């Protein structure tokens, strides 16, 4: 190889290698949506689905069985809210919508914004559990000392495997990340199922 062809070959190779480097940097970010899609499809992590009301009404209820849905709540450490379900368990027919209420109280003297994150156990049940309305779709802003009752409407898919007779819906209230940055940009936080 002469020096010039060698240089040209080197430059071409380096360009290709740099493309790989940039692509792999992008791939690191691509793993984020991939991970979320993977979790939603498999129900891993207890990520629950979201469903339109119209779609939910089209479901035919399975009158042959009852499923127990239990509710648990917790508050992330250092977040001064009280948070509890109004009923601790309900029995539902798969394919029928059900509404339950949760109650949150801001114990502090200042306005606070919280974000509830749902999770369903066991994991296999997560993909058969959908919500048509939930306070967890948006952030909740509570005035000092305010107590608010918040509804959740959910539906259990009739295709839920027969061996699952009860499932647990858990909510954890987190201090919203919006408060971390001083400039309030409510759009930053994407509401997640």
């Amino acid at each position, binding site marked *: *190889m002469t*020096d010039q062809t*060698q*240089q040209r*070959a*080197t430059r071409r*190779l*380096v360009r290709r*290698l*740099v493309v*790989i*480097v*940039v692509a*792999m*940097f*992008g*791939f*690191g*970010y691509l*793993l*984020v949506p991939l*991970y979320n899609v993977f*979790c939603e499809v*498999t129900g*891993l*992590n207890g990520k629950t689905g979201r469903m339109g009301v119209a779609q939910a009404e089209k479901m035919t209820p399975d009158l042959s069985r009852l499923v127990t849905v239990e509710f648990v709540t917790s508050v*992330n450490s250092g977040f001064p809210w009280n948070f509890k379900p109004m009923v601790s368990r309900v029995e539902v027919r798969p394919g029928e919508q059900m509404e339950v209420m949760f109650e949150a109280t801001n114990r502090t003297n200042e306005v606070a914004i919280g*974000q509830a*994150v749902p999770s369903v156990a066991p*994991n296999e049940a997560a993909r058969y559990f959908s919500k048509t309305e939930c306070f967890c779709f948006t952030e909740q802003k509570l005035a000092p000392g305010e107590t608010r009752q918040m509804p959740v409407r959910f539906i259990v898919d009739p295709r839920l495997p027969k061996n699952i007779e009860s499932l647990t819906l858990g909510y*954890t209230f*987190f*201090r*919203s*990340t*919006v408060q*971390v*940055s001083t400039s309030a*940009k409510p759009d*930053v*936080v*994407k*509401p*997640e199922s």
Partner: protein
Amino acid sequence: MSDAAVHHDHHDAHHPSGIMRWLTTTNHKDIGTMYLVFSLMMFFVGGAMAMVIRLELFQPGLQWVDPQFFNSMTTMHALVMIFGAVMPAWTGFANWMIPMMIGAPDMALPRLNNWSFWILPFAFTLLLTTLFLPGGAPAGGWTMYPPLVLQTGAAFPFLIFAVHFMGASSVAGAINIIATVFNLRAPGMTLMKLPLFVWTWIITAFLLIASIPVLAGAVTMLLTDKFFGTAFFSAAGGGDPVMFQHIFWFFGHPEVYILILPAFGIVSAIIPTFARKPLFGYSSMVYASASIAFLSFIVWAHHMFTVGMPLAGELFFMYATILIAVPTGVKVFNWVATMWQSSMTFETPMLFAISFVVLFTIGGFSGLMLGITPVDFQYHDTYFVVAHFHYVLVTGAVFALMAGTYFWLPKWTGHMYDETLGKLHFWLSTISVNVLFFPQHFLGLAGMPRRIPDYAVQFADWNMVSSIGGFVFGLSQLLFLAVIVKCARGGAKASDTVWEGARGLEWTLPSPPPYHSFSTPPAPASIDGGYR
């Protein structure tokens, strides 16, 4: 870019002297030397941190340092040893040896080469100054798991940018090595005649450019989570901390092969030399290295079996992990077969290489144990894991580095090193390193967790044994330093071949080699017949 090296062969006397020579050099030997000296310095910095850890663990209870500082030490010890000692040392070896091994005058991109080295001192200045910042150095573990790492104080952005710099340095070095081997091989140096060190480094370089950018992405997400309100890993914003572990180990598992593959190459050069026999199964070595590299991208979740995974996932990652034992077994078999019925002599490089084969295999076996999902639930985050990765990284990577240093030191300096001191260093190191790490298997199986400054009294005896081994191993490394300094200053003149059984292009050059190695390519006839 390569003309700087190719056309200036007669300017040896013109390069600047003093500090400017080192700041502006584009010579592969100068840069290789700087990499090696830097990594030796970092080896002692990281070693000093390990001494603090072993000192605190000498007895149960809190004696010497407070727990926050102890956690800083484990975190910084890992970062310094991985990114500061082992990775730059391999790049240093590559810089020194690859152009000489393939019959090239220099690296393909000499100026980039200068940059990739000089980024490193900045990276480690950033990282090491965190020891003096309010809140102390990073203490959440080198794996930087959120949300814990997000609680790091002022040190946090320093940590992230230091990782960015280290990554940029190794990616630039990797691109340079690939460009050199693909474009600057001497006529007649076909791919399947390359010495195995060059082969394993090529594979390492591809691992680097494919995995380091993913790490850069992961730490950038941490940075924006902390300062710019994103929520990649924050459950409050819809993110997931477990996702960090997936992204991190997607980088992290290839990384462990980045640390060990060049070691396979060096050992494959040393064993045939002192066995005076060609390497057994050269092509199977190449294919085995490539399969290990491929498999390294699909086994990451075995680092996190305990996070909660579906059965199918656990089975897949377990089987894929165990599969790596096959190509690795091929390698160990080939090394042993090379020694079989050969006329071996036991100079220091060979001693370290044999020790590598035995002890690395022990580390491989404990790795197999950890790869079995059901038992991993017991071993996870215990000292068993610590024992495992120190067997593969200290008696694996670091022993191979020492073997390589003794092997090529006469070539680099033109002087023979002190064989008596070298052998003393070997025996002290090999005995003490086993006293240091072998008992940690017992501690781990008995349930002692890693990354804690204090422990229950039933772990006291083996911790004391381990600490004594640690102190002896640490002090023995001063001998290594002494041998290198003594050899650089003078000693018996080394011949060109240095070792009776040495084969390969680097041994056809004088010791020390001229400033520019192969200004005219070597004769194709001299290329074949190497032990590879």
